[in-house]
């Protein structure tokens, strides 16, 4: 393959940044979902348990 270093750098950069953006978004979503569940559970429990 001609110009291999340039091609490898271009693809490496693109794939690397895409994976970084994708995993950071997935992790953030997971954390947010867990925190929301943790916050909402006691609130709902107090509401339903209240006489």
């Amino acid at each position: 393959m001609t110009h291999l270093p340039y091609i490898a750098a271009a693809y490496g950069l693109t794939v690397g940044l895409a994976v970084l953006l994708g995993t950071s978004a997935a992790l953030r979503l997971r954390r947010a979902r867990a925190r929301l569940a943790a916050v909402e559970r006691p609130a709902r429990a107090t509401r339903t348990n209240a006489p």
Partner: protein
Amino acid sequence: MGENETVLNATPSLAARTGNFLHRYANPGRFLRLGARLQPWLTWPAIVLSVAGIVWGLFLSPADWQQGDSVRIMYVHVPAAWLASSGYMGLAVCSLLSLVWRHPLADLAAVEIGPVGASVTAICLATGSLWGKPMWGTWWVWDARLTSVLVLFFLYLGHIALIRAFDEPQRGYRAAAILGLAGAVDLPIIKFSVQWWNTLHQPDSITLTAAPTMSTAMLWPLLVCTLGFTLGFAAILVARLRAAVMESRVRTALAMRRADPHDATREPDREPDRDLGGAVA
């Protein structure tokens, strides 16, 4: 939402009608349900198509008669360039929704588009540079196409900074929306720069008005890559926006709890600033 508007005329104005339509989709709960259902349909096709397109472009497509294998950089450069412009288009639409209709979801979307759009613009600039060095003989020239894309990158950076610059988020949303909308004048300049002025950058190979000036053996992997990357961009945005909506719900719930631990149904901003500092991390 927050403002009371008395509609004096019997037929609602264009702005009001559009507003009614928009606010059906402004409900964050509705967005969370829609987003959760949409997410797998974006994520998995994005991964499959991107991997297929990259393998196709890198190993299965032919080399160019004069550029040799370096033409393969096109399969990542062109989708990145397309997403840089369309991402900013999305940002401009969010800015309009924010300025005119005070659409709450548009503000959150604008916050999330910024970093993703800046990343693809950076990819576009970097891969272009890596392509220019072996082909043109230079990493960078100040021609109209390259310069206008660099301006786009700085518009993204400015938007990212501005929307986070204020203690009161609403002021950041307004200011950034003005920047986002004003910056949209750069989009036609990018598009037509290669036609209006002579540039080192070649004109577009794929246009709406003419047949592509490209062999179909190269066109197909390019289209697959473009579709895959676009779905990936959308998947990342939807995931980030869902996370942002959930985070804001967590903040609201915590604020309620702190305002009165025994009554979760009370208004959230009774005592807005007391000890929210730690919760809004």
